[in-house]
């Protein structure tokens, strides 16, 4: 469920409280979700490199 986060009364009055609350909620969840996803992917790449890179490097030398 969408949880209200907006606290700015003026903006909420102009655009409608529910829409702004929901919009801000999705905005924050969205940005943080994308960065979290990418951070996990970054760590995944690092782990793959740690597990697989040395063997690959030795294969390259051979």
């Amino acid at each position, binding site marked *: 469920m969408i949880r209200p986060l907006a606290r700015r009364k003026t903006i909420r009055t102009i655009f409608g409280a529910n829409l702004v609350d929901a*919009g801000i909620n999705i905005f924050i969840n*969205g*940005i943080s979700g*994308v960065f979290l*996803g*990418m951070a996990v992917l970054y760590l995944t790449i690092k782990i*793959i490199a740690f597990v*697989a890179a040395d*063997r690959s490097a030795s294969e*390259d030398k051979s």
Partner: protein
Amino acid sequence: MAIFEHMGIFAVTVEMVIMWLISLTLLYLAISKKYEPLLLLPIGFGILLANLPLTQLMQPDEGLIWRFYHYGIEWEVIPPLIFLGLGALTDFGPLLSQPRLIFLGAAAQAGVYVTFFTATSFGFTLEEAATIGIIGGADGPTTIFLAAKLAPHLLGACAVAAYSYMALVPIIQPPIMRLLTTENERRIKMKKGRKIGAREKLFFPIVASIVIILLVPASAPLISMFMLGNLFRESKVVERLTDAAQNALMNIVTIFLGLSVGATMNAENFLRTEVIFIFFLGLFAFMIGTATGVILAKIMNLFTSNKINPLVGGAGVSAVPMAARVVQRMGAEADKKNHLLMFAMGPNIAGVIGTVIAAGIFLTLLK
């Protein structure tokens, strides 16, 4: 005579004629200017067909193109198949050799969310705003995938906006990138990443599928196909499948995708003031995405001695490979010996993944 009553010529309206002109404009851009011809040509022809009277091509349960649309797009078949082909065409090497550049692909998604929020302020519903915002990801199949689920009535306008702006990347991005960078920054030469082995490239699509789908299950249709296509490529044991995904399958589904998307743009759906806002907001999304990518690269440079050329951040908006080519061209303009293409491919590919994650988050929160 009864035959005259069944002739379309007497049912033509002014709105239809306007849509023909829009269709002919897209056909002109595709054929003469070669702007995204693979998509804009079938889309343009689809618009023409959808606005010829009495054809019933988009009549539910009856029309030929409606069947393409229903089974291809509404059933979520075509966009994931396009992603299968894209995966088979993608080399993750540049991303794996410089994993820190993945964050530039994430930063560019700020354009999606800023536009989403702006669109809600203009009075669009949350579902419509999400569909408009995702244009900023510069990823046609993801835009179509999300629009079909959240705001099917905006599908045609959003798809045309996405593909048009992708074609216009070489015009839209350079002024923003120039504005946000100094000549010295544009001259920065990046150090080459390490060489990536075959085993790493093989592991990546498998592990990345698990990780991304566990984090954002709603992104599974697109990410799974993207990574499967890449696994075909990197496994090197199914060359026939790789070739089919890269060429025959991709070409076939592109025809149905373009035609179906174009056919959703009848006069009633398209000739509305909302559509002007969609095009404006789509452009805004592209611009913000470009700017945030460049700005994050500059911020990252504050914390590292291994400098990133901030131009590379502009490639985070997907639009593979056009955005990366723009970076290469601008880098070469500042210093002829500066070759940024392979560095830019990293955030470019990360941008594709980032847009899919963004779409998955929208689906999770709004569906």
